[in-house]
């Protein structure tokens, strides 16, 4: 087992996909070996060493962390795309911004970004955890191109704001946004849970078939195809908030939230088995 630190030499002139740099792909390999890994920069073929300073983080630190390997990306940029594609174990720590398609098709492991991330975070995600300390772009937790369902397992935790269409076509899993979200939050959702603690844009849950959207603030506009069940104590929220508070220290404050909420059922044009719960006691 091994771990590496990749320090970006300078912001790339074009977007670079890093799908091959996953913890399982670097496991057991030397820094020298990884440095020769080919990358595509626009029309040019380059190597990891052309863009990054590659450093072996040594066996001792890895041994403490257990069997899984870890990749640390320093001075990261929004030009670095598809970080952690299809990864199933281990950990990627990103210092700086991450580009689009962070954690695309991710099946397990943990990606933590100490900065913002681009569009399509956790696209087609099937497991694992993505944490972003700042904002993310549009279509978080959405579907892979050509797929009819978005993320179907795993957790995306965003400390900043999410863009438009967050949770679009989401099938299962959890998306928590501590800030606000853009328009069409949870559109065409088929299951799973979205929690947004800040303001949201227009048409929340438009076309959603199943799933739960929990909002701490009343949305500016709810589609006409949602009907209200009125103010209720939703006992499930106690469980949800406790589980989130227990799992993530940064969400421990949720344990103080109560279950009182307004339940909006919809989208009635798509079966009406989804729900938007607007918290009234947060």
């Amino acid at each position: 087992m091994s771990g590496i630190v990749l320090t970006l030499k300078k912001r790339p002139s074009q977007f670079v996909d890093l799908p091959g740099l996953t913890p399982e792909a670097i496991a057991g390999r030397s820094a020298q070996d990884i440095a020769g890994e080919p990358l595509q920069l626009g029309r040019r073929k380059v190597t990891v060493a052309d863009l990054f300073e590659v450093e072996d983080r040594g066996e001792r630190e890895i041994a403490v962390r257990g069997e899984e390997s870890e990749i640390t990306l320093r001075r990261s940029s929004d030009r670095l795309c598809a970080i952690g594609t299809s990864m199933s174990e281990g950990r990627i720590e990103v210092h700086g911004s991450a580009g689009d398609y962070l954690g695309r098709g991710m099946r397990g492991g943990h990606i933590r970004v100490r900065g913002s991330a681009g569009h399509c975070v956790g696209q087609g995600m099937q497991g694992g955890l993505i944490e972003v300390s700042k904002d993310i772009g549009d279509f978080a937790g959405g579907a892979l191109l050509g797929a009819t369902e978005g993320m179907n397992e795993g957790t995306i935790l965003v400390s900043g704001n999410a863009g438009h269409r967050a949770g679009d076509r989401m099938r299962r899993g959890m998306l928590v946004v501590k800030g606000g979200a853009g328009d069409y939050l949870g559109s065409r959702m088929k299951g799973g849970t979205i929690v947004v603690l800040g303001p949201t844009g227009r048409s929340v849950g438009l076309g959603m078939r199943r799933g739960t959207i929990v909002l701490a603030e009343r949305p500016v506009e709810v589609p006409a195809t949602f009907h209200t069940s009125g103010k209720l104590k939703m006992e499930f929220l106690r469980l949800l908030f406790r589980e989130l508070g227990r799992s993530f220290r940064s969400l421990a404050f949720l344990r103080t939230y109560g279950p009182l909420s307004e339940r909006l059922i919809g989208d009635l044009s798509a079966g009406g088995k989804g729900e938007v719960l607007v918290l009234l006691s947060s």
Partner: protein
Amino acid sequence: MKVNGVYIDDTFAEAFPMKATRIIITGMTLKWAYRAANSLIGFASSVIACGCEADIECELDPEETPDGRPGIAVIVFAMSTKQLADQILKRVGQSVMTTATSACFSGLRCEPSIKLGQALRFFGDGYQISKKLNGVRYWRIPVMHGEFVCEEKTGVADAIGGGNFLVLAKTSRHALAACEKGVLAIRKVPRAVTSFPAGIVGSGSKVGSKYKFMKASTNHPYCPTLKGRVPDTDVGPEIGSVLEIVIDGLDEEAIRESMRAGIEAVCRFGPEKGIYRISAGNYGGKLGPYHFHLRQILA
């Protein structure tokens, strides 16, 4: 061997393998969690005719329950996984789900498992909602009091039933006073329960009967009223009442610790308060694989 002047028979309790699960029931208040739990453990004293044996293990603080409300942990024992599944479904469905403000969770997450919300969800008539949190699936069933939240499955563990000891006393009043204290001591031991009413058996049984249709019948060697009538009586002239405490546990250590705590609490009464002997029920060691020797436990 004597403990505080109480003679300890050189014998052993014979116990049997069972299957068990733990259920956590929560309610709006502890009172309502108790209402549900007491209903669930009703008519669950012995597998001979009740289908299962069940009792409250302990109260749970809001910090200890999945939904942050006061709760009760109940352990249910049966002779097979199939029987346990059948009993759990009936009892949670009819006793817990029908109790206002209740919710039901697994207190034993392991494999193999049996259905909990996975079967009860159909009560939702299509309006039920599934939620998976941290790898655990829950069912939200819309009910008239609001929403019944129930975990999908609960684990089944190999367990032991039939740990026991007999309290031979001057009168039933003396025996009962000591046994009540004994049961209180046992309730402090985790992973073990006493399923009979108040934890005390007033009519302990032996296997078989002169009547072919009876699986069990009165434990005649310990019936004080049969002294002088049956040749194999085991109660001396000073004994006027015998009570039994039966313990089911999730492992041998839980039963051993419960028996020790219970016997010590009973023996504190001593002969001056009418407690003369402690014995145990067994079948000669031929039926049950678990033998709990009284003197070894108290040594």
